């Protein structure tokens, strides 16, 4: 099963690149998605808000700036959220794209709904079930090989697999099995974003494992191309991928802030699980308000005056 990302088809395969990526529109989108996630948090408990906020720009960039689609709207590339507890980021992007419905998210973690707290294979737009850390990258290797086999049969270009891992996942042995193996198998159609927010639920990763840093060097030592960047700067994310070595897998080590966008959540471990109370919620909405809110749809963050490319898919 592959995702259909569009209800509106476009004229040709598109490879979005840094030059075409509308960063200010993306910033508006991400603010709107943060507001939407906070809105959900008022109805649903334990939704992993801060881990979703740390990877939101990365996930938005992958869908809007990197993944290609066929003329019929079918996604040609694959996205796997290996840090499944960031599901709200992916759900919000998929809702914004029209792949998931508003009702899908409204009933998330509700007995009448079909979405849980982690991505489930079979849900709209979800390519693999994740939730237990360290599973996404090995599965991604298999998808990369499958896409290479398909492209060999069709004499075409192998589709790319984009994966988002957390820095906590770098403590899992299975992650390093796959990191070691990918260049050995000459897997080239793989881009891994490490959401380097610096925390696991128990505290700072740098305290747990001082020797994990610098992360990019570990990937390079295993034969990967690795690029450091700011995980909330979407231009820097797309530029990193634009400079990908076509022969090697790429690790984009993206420095992020857990709880990015809401001042009191930033780098506070308790927001790994907690939902804001009503006054905290209001404060968060004020911090995430649009400078010119009249020009925007309050839910999608799209500007009615200037339709952006991202709105097509």
């Amino acid at each position: 099963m592959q995702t259909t990302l569009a209800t509106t088809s476009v004229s040709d395969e598109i490879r979005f690149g840094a030059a075409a990526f509308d960063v200010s529109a993306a910033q508006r989108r991400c603010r709107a998605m943060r507001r939407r996630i906070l809105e959900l948090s008022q109805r649903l408990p334990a939704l992993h808000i801060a881990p979703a906020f740390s990877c939101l720009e990365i996930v938005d960039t992958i869908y809007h700036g990197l993944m290609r689609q066929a003329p019929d709207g079918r996604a040609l590339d694959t996205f796997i959220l290996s840090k499944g507890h960031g599901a709200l980021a992916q759900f919000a992007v998929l809702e914004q794209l029209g792949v998931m419905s508003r009702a899908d998210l409204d009933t998330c973690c509700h007995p009448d709904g079909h979405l849980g707290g982690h991505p489930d294979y079979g849900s709209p737009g979800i390519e693999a079930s994740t939730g237990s850390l360290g599973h996404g990258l090995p599965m991604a290797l298999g998808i990369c090989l499958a896409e290479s086999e398909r492209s060999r049969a069709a004499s075409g270009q192998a589709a790319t697999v984009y994966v988002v891992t957390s820095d906590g996942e770098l403590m899992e042995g299975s992650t390093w099995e796959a990191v070691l193996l990918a260049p050995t198998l000459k897997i080239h159609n793989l881009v891994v974003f490490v959401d380097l927010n610096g925390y696991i639920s128990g505290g700072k990763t740098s305290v747990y494992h001082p020797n994990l840093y610098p992360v990019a060097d570990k990937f390079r030592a295993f034969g990967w191309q690795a690029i450091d960047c700011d995980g909330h700067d979407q231009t820097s994310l797309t530029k990193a991928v634009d400079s990908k070595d076509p022969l090697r897998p790429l690790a984009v080590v993206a420095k992020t802030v857990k709880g990015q966008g809401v001042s009191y959540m930033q780098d506070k471990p308790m927001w790994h699980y907690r939902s804001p109370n009503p006054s905290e919620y209001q404060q968060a909405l004020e911090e995430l308000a649009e400078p010119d809110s009249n020009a925007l749809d309050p839910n999608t963050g799209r500007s009615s005056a200037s339709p952006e490319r991202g709105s097509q898919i």
Partner: protein
Amino acid sequence: MRDAFARAFYDASQLNSKLFMVVADISPASKIANFKTECPSRFIDVGIAEQTLIGLSAGLALRGFKPFAYTIANFAIYRPFEQVRDDVCYQNLPVTIVGMGAGIAYSPLGATHHTLEDVAVMSSIPNMTVLAPCDPAETEAAVHFAAGHTGPLYLRLGKAGEPNLTAQAQPFEFGKIRQLRPGSGACVLSYGPITKMACDLADKLQAERGIPAAVYSVHTLKPLDTTGIAAVLKQFPLVVTLEEHVERGGLGAQVKQLAWETAAPCRLHTFALQDRFIHLYGSHQQLQQAHGLSVDQLYPQISNPFQGTSLHG
């Protein structure tokens, strides 16, 4: 069995270009070597990385391929248990996990290389199918079934040198117990290579007591042929189960349950591995004997009509 597996996989691969062979440090022998030479892109050795063996196989299956993940049984399922459960079974993917040398076949290598409880562990996962053929010919039939199966499958194999027991048998039918020889006074239900011992036990009953004993291969352990086994429990005055596996979660416990549920009138003996790790580093046969499993140890127990479980008086 290894060679039969290799032959059957090779033959199936000639008809199905979706088949992949994914191994973890298993040298391609017999016809697997031919497959590797002829289809190098569909033969993948992940090295000593069993979590990635299963995760990568799940990834291939997510894109429509049909991988056989092949290594020694204990490595194939115990180290990557969570990948088997989450990546393969939870996503209900057509991955065949091939466990070679199951049971206590690698007797001198110690319990790290044994699977005393693999049928119980694999059968307990939703969506999983479990097959354990008794001889090389049945292995070939099981492989051809697995190649066309649409969900997760654990194929429990022996090692090498197993005799052929099914030359005169009914055809292999998935999900049905298979009569290897007819009988009337007693019936032995078994699976895997220890079915040879079941045949020898039946021979001894015939030779020494004149009791014509039937033998069935219960090659499909999940879904278990409860209808066929219930008929056996009703038809024969003496029913014996024999397995190279602990009783809990194995065939013996399930047949006992079925006997109770169907108010079976027969005497029932369930022979299995003991619920302990035995530090005996001898031959396969010697370790079986240490568990109490040999014709000479079993025969006196079944030939005495006052022994055995008579569940309903």
